[in-house]
């Protein structure tokens, strides 16, 4: 992998905003094969650009199959088995912002904090003979955060989508999900615990700590880093 490989989100608002940011640092994106292509080039930089899902980008940065990428911090944190040491966030981009939060049914007047959740979980296990279920797609950060908050009375249920509906459909009692305004949570009868904000996430330009930066990749990387710091000085 001697050519620099950069990945950006393949669709949606995140893609548009990333393109605007790249243009802003002097390297506008040129997609190969038109709007539907999945590879691209950056003007003025010898690099291969891949258009991937945010999850694939986070995974590739952690594994080292990508040199740089733009993806959500939530995914980076969750997919890195050993945590934040496995990637390097070079710049938080100011868009794609959202919080990963712990939310419980609003009806739980007795549960406002993680400590309350632990107490409710213990009582629940006595009454039901099973643990409270927590639905999430963030398996690792949830486990890390609950351990850090000394909460052990729960079971994780992996959620593929529409996590916020899990309590009302009965697949789980508590959720860990990403939210921007909290409106979806509220509409589903849920509330965020007072100390239940796990992560304030943004789209982030991120460098892999595992990728090989030898040869041509290293030169192009330096050029890109130069453009980045210059853009920072101007703005």
């Amino acid at each position, binding site marked *: 992998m001697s050519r620099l490989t950069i990945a950006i989100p393949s669709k949606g608002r995140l893609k548009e905003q990333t393109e605007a940011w790249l243009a802003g640092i002097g390297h506008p994106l040129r997609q190969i094969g038109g709007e539907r292509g999945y590879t691209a080039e950056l003007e003025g930089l010898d690099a291969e650009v891949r258009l991937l899902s945010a999850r694939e980008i986070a995974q590739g940065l952690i594994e080292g199959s990508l040199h740089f990428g733009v993806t959500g911090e939530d995914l980076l944190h969750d997919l890195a088995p050993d945590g934040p040491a496995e990637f390097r966030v070079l710049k938080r981009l100011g868009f794609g912002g959202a919080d990963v939060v712990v939310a419980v049914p609003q*009806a739980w007047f007795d549960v406002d*904090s993680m400590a309350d959740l632990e107490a409710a979980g213990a009582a629940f296990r006595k009454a*039901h003979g099973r643990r409270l279920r927590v639905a999430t797609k963030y398996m690792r950060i949830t486990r890390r955060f*609950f351990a850090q908050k000394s909460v052990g009375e729960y*079971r994780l249920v992996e959620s593929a989508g529409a996590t916020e509906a899990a309590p009302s459909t009965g697949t789980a009692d508590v959720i860990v999900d990403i939210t921007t305004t909290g409106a979806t949570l509220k509409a589903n009868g849920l509330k965020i615990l007072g100390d239940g904000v796990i992560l304030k996430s943004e789209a982030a330009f991120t460098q892999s700590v595992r990728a090989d930066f030898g040869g041509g990749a290293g030169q192009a990387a330096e050029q890109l880093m130069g453009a980045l710091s210059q853009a920072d000085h101007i703005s």
Partner: protein
Amino acid sequence: MNHDALVAVARAVFEAAGGTPIDPDYVLPADIPLELSGEAVRARLCVFTDNRGAEMVMRPDLTLPVAQREVARLAEAGASAKTYTYAARAFRLPAAADDPFEFTQVGVERFGHDAGPAADAELFALVHRAVEACGVQPVAVVTGDLGIFPAFIDALGLPTVSTDLLKRAFRQEGGVRAVLDAGARELDADVLAALDADGAEAALGAVLAARAIPLAGARSLAEIVDGLRARRAAIAAGGLPETARAALLALRDVDCPLTEAPGRLSDLARTYGLAGADAALAAFAARVEKIMALVPAARRTAAFRAGFGRRFTYYDGFVFEVLADGLSASQPVAAGGRYDGLIAGLSSGRVSATGIGGIVRPDRMVRVRRAGA
């Protein structure tokens, strides 16, 4: 001696002490470790889904599948004491780069026997003997007792709600501190009024309806009412008394040679006027005495840490780990402990039996012997 020779030596030590050889199920429903121990253990479990999508695990140790078999036997044959020995593979996701995915545990599990201090000491001595028979000299033994903290809490005479909270918190890293520092938030007026109404559940249901809040999830109104009453009791109690805080923090910090531990704990109990812990402390002292009689080297090598073993989830009494030169403190060559609640927990209370067990790790002892050679 290579790995298989060490397995044979350790196995002979355990089998000489009596017991039925057993090689139980390799694959368990994930519910068994996860419901028993919580999600904290998932990071180490080899989990997969079966053809119907149910989560299964490769056995992470032998205690769980052996206990599962014992539950079935007890349900069929009725209560009687039984000892099992094994030399069998267990499977865990590595926590460190030099951890293996699968490894052999050679060990013993005893169910339904007398559970006194002598039984604890004898099991420890047996495991210690198996390590020595493998030509490995233990350089350190760490011990704990998961019954001491609860005994102190009971002796403090706190309201039930604080007692339950603290006992649970003890099992979590940083949990006790978190409980001691947490203040209970006041309740809203309409919610408080509902608690005092005739038929609190219906009244709380009316509060929900008035606020247009749905009741989602499996927790019932009755459980929420119980939770609210517990919180109100905690607010009324005004947090923990200063002496209780001081006693628990002092206990949490006890870390000393095992020979000194009975004295240290008695001093603490006397300082804070906790006569209620006397019975637990007398049993603790008797166990230490017996350990020193059976394993004189423990005088030099064994330590007691009040917080040790609290995350060994199904253990509930005496716990220990044996360390040898050349490996990290998280890679003991032998370990074990008491789990009197395990059989009842696995069977949802249908059957119960005392339990204690211990294992040695031949793969690690190979590394110790190689490093020492």
